């Protein structure tokens, strides 16, 4: 089974997690830039983070046979902090990088005017760079937030098929799919969605334009939730082609619109081109 993890935050994961992900079938992932779990205080903090997503984290992933790509953006929460918003001016320099396959995560957190501006600005940046956009839907007031998000997407230059609306659930999936956007679901141990509810969504709405992720941030999370959804799908009567479509072909189709996916990563081994750093230095 091959798995593409389309939304997962890796700096909080250990090397054991990378190994477990590889063993579970993960061969590629997309890491969106987001909040760090505590506030940043300057654009420089974003630049260090972007460096990690463009350099060190792909290097770590490659040691475990996993192709690492990223999405870059000013996240919705910090779009409200004037200390952070200047990062928008620097984004054009970063969005041209080879492994950047979308602008994201953008979207709404508290639905403020500052978030309106950041969302519209960054949808335009995506259109200007020929990139898709990964759009986070808010955790509070989610349905209203989804509707407002879809309105902003409609007003933008970015076609809906270039937009992935993420963190959806039973109350938002129908409108998200009807908008023409792609639909993402984050599977967590306690919050957002779980495997069994995801099966019901797939039964009711089919497998077209649907992506499943484990997100796996610094909160209680499980980087193997993608595999657990795949296993639950098979138990529930979906076949292997359905699983491959949701867990591999759909994310490849969505992020492939960037023209920048590189999925021909070498198989991992004790030595990769003679210079493995499985231990990350000693």
């Amino acid at each position, binding site marked *: 089974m091959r798995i593409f993890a389309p939304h997962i935050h890796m700096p909080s994961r250990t090397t054991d997690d990378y190994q477990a992900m590889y063993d579970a079938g993960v061969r590629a992932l997309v890491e969106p830039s987001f909040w760090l779990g505590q506030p940043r205080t300057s654009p420089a903090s974003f630049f260090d983070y972007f460096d990690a997503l463009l350099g060190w984290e792909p*290097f770590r992933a490659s040691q475990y046979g996993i192709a690492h790509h990223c999405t870059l953006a000013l996240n919705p929460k910090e779009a409200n902090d004037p200390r952070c918003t200047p990062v928008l001016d620097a984004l054009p320099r970063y969005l041209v*990088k080879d492994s950047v396959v979308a602008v994201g995560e953008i979207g709404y957190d508290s639905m403020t005017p500052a978030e309106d501006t950041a969302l519209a600005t960054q949808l335009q940046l995506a259109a200007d760079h020929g990139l898709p956009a990964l759009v986070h839907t808010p955790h509070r007031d989610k349905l209203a937030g989804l509707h407002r998000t879809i309105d902003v997407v409609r007003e933008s230059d970015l076609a809906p098929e270039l937009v992935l609306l993420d963190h959806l659930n039973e109350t938002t999936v129908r409108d998200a799919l009807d908008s023409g956007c792609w639909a993402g679901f984050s599977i967590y141990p306690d919050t957002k969605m779980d495997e069994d509810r995801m099966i019901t969504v797939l039964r009711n709405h089919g497998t077209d334009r649907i992506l499943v992720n484990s997100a796996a941030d610094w909160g209680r999370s499980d980087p193997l939730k993608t595999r657990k959804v795949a296993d639950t799908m098979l138990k529930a009567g979906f076949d292997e082609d359905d699983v491959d479509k949701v867990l591999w072909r759909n994310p490849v189709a969505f992020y492939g619109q960037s023209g920048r996916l590189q999925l021909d990563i070498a198989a991992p081994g004790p030595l990769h081109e*003679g210079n493995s*750093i499985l231990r990350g230095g*000693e």
Partner: protein
Amino acid sequence: MLTSREELDGLLRGAARAWLDEALAEAAHAASHPGADSGNPPWELRFASAGRHCGLEHADSVRALLLVEARPALPAVTRLYEQGTAAERRAVLLTLHRLDLGATALPLVEDALRTNDTRLVAAAVGPYGAAHLDAHGWRHAVLKCLFTEVPVEALDRLPERAGGDAELARMLGDFASERTAAGRAVPAGLRTVLELTVPAPAPTEEAR
């Protein structure tokens, strides 16, 4: 190994070759207008996207050609490195010795040697690092290669710099002892470097 412009012309297909021609023209324009270096100079954006347009296998070579053509001053070189992906940083490190910067770009090499990314460590011990790292910094770079399993063949001018270096020999010996005490293997490259540290025998009377 970096590929020359002539070789690239034979390797690149039409669209990629045209892209390279335009990129090099933009780089040449930047070289002849050094004061106009504000915002995001077009050639610098080309530098970032070189792999997509010319093939990842040619990215190092294309980026090196762009750097040589644009002849950026230290601030621009530093910006390209600091805001670059690992692949872009690697291309900067591999080209520093061709940019007429003297020793001023040494902080970029030192930055790369602080990382644990073997792509950067290997590039940092290329011709520029070999020319400008002081004895202490270069010895630690050798140890870093051994620690991170960067092949010692990556060390430019290795025989010349290691030759007769008794302090390097001591450091390598201590490292080997530490590994042996821990029951772990001594890296194969260590012996290669250690042998190079042996001072050349003093010339005899007959040889003079």
